[in-house]
């Protein structure tokens, strides 16, 4: 079937993309001044300590052999050992990846249906009070960077006005993010508020187009119930561009957590990423970059497949 072939081809291209990303990241980290040994020793980097540490970390090998040995491991799922910690990258990522996934998933699960609802309702009641209010609020939120939203939330709910939620979201050792719901509220709210306006505004725009189209007029003239007109005829077509935007937004969330995690001191891959770049901890930087890149590739593919499946024209075109 056509769809399966398309998915397979895109997956193969995805693997190629990841390989290229790893090459670029390796080259970029090599271009940074200083290496992991320097970053680890900081102020106390004397020549003896540097050479002892470089030998220990294997940084005295040639660049090509460093990359190739990393690539050989990565090909079989072994992302190597963190230069900064000496533990495996997998164990370093473990609980952090879980924590970040919790954050991104919950933010996506809340923001996507919420934005669809708000966007569709705004389009349906176009220029009504709800739509005007929505335009105003979403435009202001969309123009604020996520860290500003985060700081405003902290001031409002944690330190200056109320003391409802904790200002920091450090998950204690031995506990998982699920057991600390009150610590998730503000970071998730910050993420939701930064992506929701984007998705709902796109849906609103495309729904307005669809609601004015001939086939919706036709459906109405046939005397179909309003609910059927909107849910069966307008929404599926209006969703198509929104699905692409949603996929990009969720992928953006995976990148946006970097800033939000740092702000709330949340132990996820984002804060580890910032740290690893500073430490020139190449294996960790590579692993996290590949995770985020894979997420982009996967979400884009998923968005394409879903768009094809829900759009009648594209669906029939494939067969």
């Amino acid at each position, binding site marked *: 079937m056509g769809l399966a072939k398309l998915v397979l081809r895109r997956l193969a291209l995805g693997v190629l993309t990841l390989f290229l990303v790893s090459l670029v990241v390796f080259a970029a980290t090599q271009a*940074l*001044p*200083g290496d*992991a040994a*320097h*970053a*680890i*020793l*900081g*102020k*106390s*980097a*004397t020549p*003896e*300590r540097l050479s*002892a540490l470089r030998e220990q970390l294997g940084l005295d090998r040639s660049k090509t052999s460093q990359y190739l040995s990393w690539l050989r491991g990565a090909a079989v799922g072994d992302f190597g050992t*963190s*230069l*900064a*910690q000496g533990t495996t990258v997998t164990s*370093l990522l473990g609980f952090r990846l879980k924590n970040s996934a919790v954050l991104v998933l919950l933010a996506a699960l809340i923001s996507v249906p919420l934005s669809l609802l708000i966007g569709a309702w705004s389009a349906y009641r176009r220029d009504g009070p709800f739509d005007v209010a929505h335009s105003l609020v979403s435009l202001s939120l969309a123009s604020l960077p996520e860290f500003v939203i985060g*700081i405003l939330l*902290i001031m409002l709910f*944690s*330190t200056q006005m109320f*003391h409802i939620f*904790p*200002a*920091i979201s*450090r998950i*204690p*050792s031995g506990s998982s993010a699920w057991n600390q719901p009150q610590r998730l509220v503000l970071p998730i709210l910050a993420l939701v508020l930064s992506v929701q306006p984007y998705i709902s505004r796109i849906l609103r725009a495309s729904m307005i187009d669809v609601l004015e189209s001939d086939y919706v007029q036709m459906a109405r003239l046939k005397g179909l119930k309003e609910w059927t007109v909107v849910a069966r005829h307008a929404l599926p077509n209006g969703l198509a561009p929104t699905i692409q935007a949603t996929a990009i937004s969720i992928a953006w969330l995976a990148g946006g957590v970097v800033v939000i995690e*740092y*702000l*709330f*001191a949340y*132990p996820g891959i984002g*804060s*580890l990423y*910032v*740290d*690893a770049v*500073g*430490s*020139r*901890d190449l294996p*960790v930087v590579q692993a996290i970059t590949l995770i985020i890149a894979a997420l982009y590739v996967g979400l884009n593919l998923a968005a394409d497949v879903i768009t094809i499946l829900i759009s009648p024209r594209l669906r029939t075109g494939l067969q």
Partner: protein
Amino acid sequence: MDDQQREISTDTDRGFQGRYSRRQALKGAAALGATVGLGSLLTACGSSSDTSSSASPSTGTPKKGGDLLVGVATGSAKDTLDAQMSINEPDIARQFELYESLVGHDRNYQIVNLLAEELTPSPDAQVWTVRLKQGLEFHDGKTVTADDVVFSFQRILNPKNPKAGAEQLQGLKPSGIRKIDDRTVEFALERPNAVFDVGLAYYQNTVIPIGYDPKKPVGTGAFKFTSWRPGLDSDFARFDNYWGQVANVDTVKTIEFPDDTARVNALLSGDVHMISNLPGAQITVVQADSSFRVLNSPSGGWIPFTMRVDIPPFSDLRVRQAMRLIVDRPQMLSLALNGQGRIGNDMYAREDPVYASDLPQRVQDIEQAKSLLAQAGQSDLTVELPTSSDYVGFPESAQVIREQAKLAGVTINVRKLDSGTYWDGYLKFPFAQDFWYTREYLPQCAAGSLPEAPYNECHWSDPEWVSLVEEAFRTVDVDKRKELCHAAQVIEYERGGYIIWSFNNQVDAHSTQVQGVYEDKSGIPLMSWHFNTVSLG
């Protein structure tokens, strides 16, 4: 003995009785003068005789139990638990909690015995003998013996991989460490070192058991290891068999916050009890809230500008002096550090009794600076100043000196670098910044000014100065040594490569729930991370 009594006697023991006579003679005068600089804002609950000033009613016996939560600045996955190789602030915090040296510094930066019962130099200060206290225990129950001390110092001095405190042990080679009996070790130096005790007191030179494994850290400190997540937090528990004052709290958890805002927010929202390094701009915010206190400790810590004396433009003495005359120190202190500190006079080691406080305070003199620059043919001098946000006051003071230099026609291009890049180059940049905690004069020379010093950032090697300092190291007579150190400081004051514009206060903060905190002159945050006196009310 109740807790209060025990605490006072411990403090006395650590402060005075335990000190050997030569050191006592040297520091006697200083100890008299070294009462705390500012009146303490804080309740030093049930605390020692010398620094307590009870602003709120003392509760007598400190409350036992509780989990102390401490917010620490910086923190990274590259952190370490190594007892002798700490680098970042959280590393140093863990080091003070878990491990101890033979001797150490008290809150007034006086040397006190820790694991040592007695430290005796030979008359020529070439052989130093240390006798351990009786019945000292490691966290795993093993007794601390001379073998452990020998092992610890051989590890520090490992020529292939020297640990952070190696350069402080001037004159000691691994072969000079000898066990005399189970509790006695002899350090036979290659050359006399009259201040070897200060090197032993350096916090990186800790004593660890034979076969020490940083992955399963065992030490003698007031807290023992429970768990650790690099870059996130560490959990330690009270060590009940501690030789000194056993901690009041059950556990101490240090939580790492690379972001200043997050750290302050954590305190304000009640997530932690104490935080280190309160940013200057937040001092008034914290002071305004009656449930928090600022712990402001004057210290001998300094944040110099470093000028390389071996390459142009600063190889010309006139240019160096012009730069020193450009700086308006009171203004820089007030703008860059919110006034939290004391102005400097281009010499370090403010807390050492040998500090040359008699030299006239250097003040801004733009006319003189201009004329010196003109003589040197550098009237339109342009220099680059790399900086990073690694330390409180770094980028701020860089901005201030840029503005002040404009008055004399000097262009300073401030270039902000990320941490890795900055420390990769700071010993090579012609013009840069650094930070140092409190240190005595000669040990500071060994770390940063002697030609073979590992951090000789000014590339300083003035022959006259070097011979004075080397002689001072050999000189046992306190007064004679002080004279030599004074002469050396005059040289640095007249032609050195440092611009030392302040001695910064260490500013931390805590909630009023926390009792038993005190000011500490070391420049190391939160009472040098000693939490055994702290209780949670």
